[in-house]
């Protein structure tokens, strides 16, 4: 089992708190720290320039891998993205897990960067082709619908050969299938229930097999909201307020997804969320909830959302610690 820590942000909005979390994550034995890309003020995430801050992670750590979930490929030129990623891979000594996503969670970014949402599927496909060529080919040119690149040699080349692992955030079924066909890992969002995840996993692995990807290098990375405290009751008491505040006020896109899942906002309830997708509780409860995912979905890579921007930094650090010390050791860690 691999454990990634999704670095969402902190209540204070301070990058220095985040750096502290990242150093602590390495000390606690997480495999990866993962960050996303978010522009402007849209509530939750605060990384408009994810590779720039990831370079600080790289300088502060020596072992932990640095993941992206994800760069919004349609918002930037693929050559910039390839260069940023390769630079980070070199600086971190080959610790980058590259992650791509088709579209931003907000529409404003697509308007500002003049990259219409309806082009984003094709742009994702083209951009990934360009990026892989930039990383692996000494010289290349590219002629796509959106990107036309004369013969160039892009530097630096990444340290990892042939190139850093690639994952794609799969919100839609279409993107999930795209990732499986192309041989990319897929990142699955935090609000899917176990029956939904089962279906997702079946589709992904079936298509992946049909496309003759042997599965050795690809993973299904499942994201979950996690909070650990001494007892189940205490955990719920501590996290209910911050979590509901997060859903209701700070994560408009997540709220919209939950409304479409539960029909209406009136059907939102903390207990229901805990039952369906949140792993909140004592180390024992959280361990058994993870085992449930292992047994039903074949979970092997868990992306942990352990920090919310509505949660006090101190509580977040405490929950990370309990998770690392009392939950992670219950699973076989592989290499």
């Amino acid at each position: 089992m691999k454990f990634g820590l999704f670095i969402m942000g902190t209540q204070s909005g301070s990058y220095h708190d985040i750096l502290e979390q990242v150093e602590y994550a390495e000390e606690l034995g997480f495999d990866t720290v993962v960050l996303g890309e978010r522009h402007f003020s849209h509530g939750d995430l605060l990384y408009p320039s994810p590779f720039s801050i990831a370079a600080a992670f790289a300088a502060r750590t020596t072992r932990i891998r640095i993941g992206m979930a994800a760069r919004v490929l349609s918002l930037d030129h693929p050559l910039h993205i390839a260069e940023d990623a390769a630079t980070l891979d070199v600086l971190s000594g080959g610790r980058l897990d590259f992650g791509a996503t088709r579209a931003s969670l907000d529409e404003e970014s697509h308007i500002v960067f003049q990259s219409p949402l309806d082009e984003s599927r094709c742009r994702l496909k083209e951009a990934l082709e360009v990026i892989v060529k930039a990383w692996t080919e000494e010289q290349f040119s590219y002629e796509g619908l959106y990107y036309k690149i004369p013969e160039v040699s892009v530097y630096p080349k990444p340290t990892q050969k042939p190139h850093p692992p690639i994952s794609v955030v799969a919100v839609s079924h279409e993107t999930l299938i795209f990732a499986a066909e192309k041989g990319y890992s897929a990142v699955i969002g935090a609000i899917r229930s176990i029956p939904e995840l089962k279906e997702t996993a079946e589709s992904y692995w079936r298509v992946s097999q049909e496309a003759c990807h042997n599965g050795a290098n690809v993973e299904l990375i499942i994201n979950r909201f996690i909070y650990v405290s001494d007892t189940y009751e205490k955990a719920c008491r501590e996290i209910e307020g911050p979590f509901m505040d997060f859903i209701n006020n700070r994560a408009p896109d997540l709220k919209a997804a939950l409304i479409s899942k539960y029909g209406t906002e009136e059907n939102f309830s903390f207990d229901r969320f805990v039952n369906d997708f949140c792993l909140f509780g004592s180390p024992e409860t959280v361990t058994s909830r993870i085992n449930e995912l292992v047994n039903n979905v074949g979970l092997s890579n868990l992306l942990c959302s352990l920090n919310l921007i509505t949660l006090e930094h101190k509580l977040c650090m405490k929950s990370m610690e309990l998770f690392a010390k009392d939950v992670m050791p219950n699973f076989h860690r592989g290499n």
Partner: protein
Amino acid sequence: MKIGFYATGSATSSHQDLMNQIRYADEEGFDSVWLRERHFHPDHHGRNFFSSPFVAASYISNITKRIRIGIGARLLPLDHPIHIAEGAATVDIISNGRLDLGIARIGENELYQNAFGIEAGETRDRFEQSFEVIIKAWTEERFSYDGFYKLSEVSVHPKPVQKPHPPMYLVGISPETLRFGAKQGLPLLLAGAQTATIVKKTLETYRQILKEMRYKQENVVHPVNRFIYVAETNKKAIEETKEAIMGFIHRASSAIGNFLFLPKEKVTYDLLFKEVCIFGDPDYCLRRIEEMKNIIDLRYLILTFNYFTVCHEKCLKSMELFTKYVMPHLKKSSALTASDCL
């Protein structure tokens, strides 16, 4: 006098060697380290390290303690100004306010324009508009813009730590670009591959425009970049640089010719030695710098110790001789602080 270290990289050494040169500059009292933005460049043996200057800058800010981190320069038309504003602000925060941002129009390279899908005729307007957008993104809570970049009531975050915003520098040679920079009151960063005569002339013109624009031009400190190599003796310095600097000139892009206003084949070692570079023993190097100080009122010198063609060990040795025997004399005359720049 302020002293900067221009980080270029070396053909025979690793990125970590370069980081070690930067650590050394931080520890030994250099005021700044400067990175640049370059794309592609197979002629640097695939060791172009500068395609993502903000990523490198953020890393560097975490392995250094006090040195300022300059980008000389971001090529504004190649990227969206919001990306540049966001990236710069991120680095400024991560480095606790140590970012200096140089900007340039694009300069030399048609390939850059084609690769990033920019029309050649657009670069001047993009450059000027991008500058405006970046400043707004940093300093205004919400703003709109209508030009190449169309922005409606956007609120860009995070904001930089330095207020009102990180110091900016202009890198450029064309009269229009110089005029634009002077209009904004920006210090001009003068490229290393310019003869002393051109540096002097450019600075005179630039200072004159600043004056016309009613800036207190005497408070604007213009950094001048020079290639340097310090060895135990002049003879050794010449021996050890001849091949290195000529190799650099021959491999480097046509930009060198543009900056020298000379066709590449007319660039001889003799010319470089006399007019462009500072190669010699510590006394000789000091004398050359003092000379420049008197002629052009030099208050900020950015030194390039490596031109891709000097190996890491020699580069460190030359830096060592410089910090030991040259820098102390220059630091004595230092009177200005960062806040005097703008």
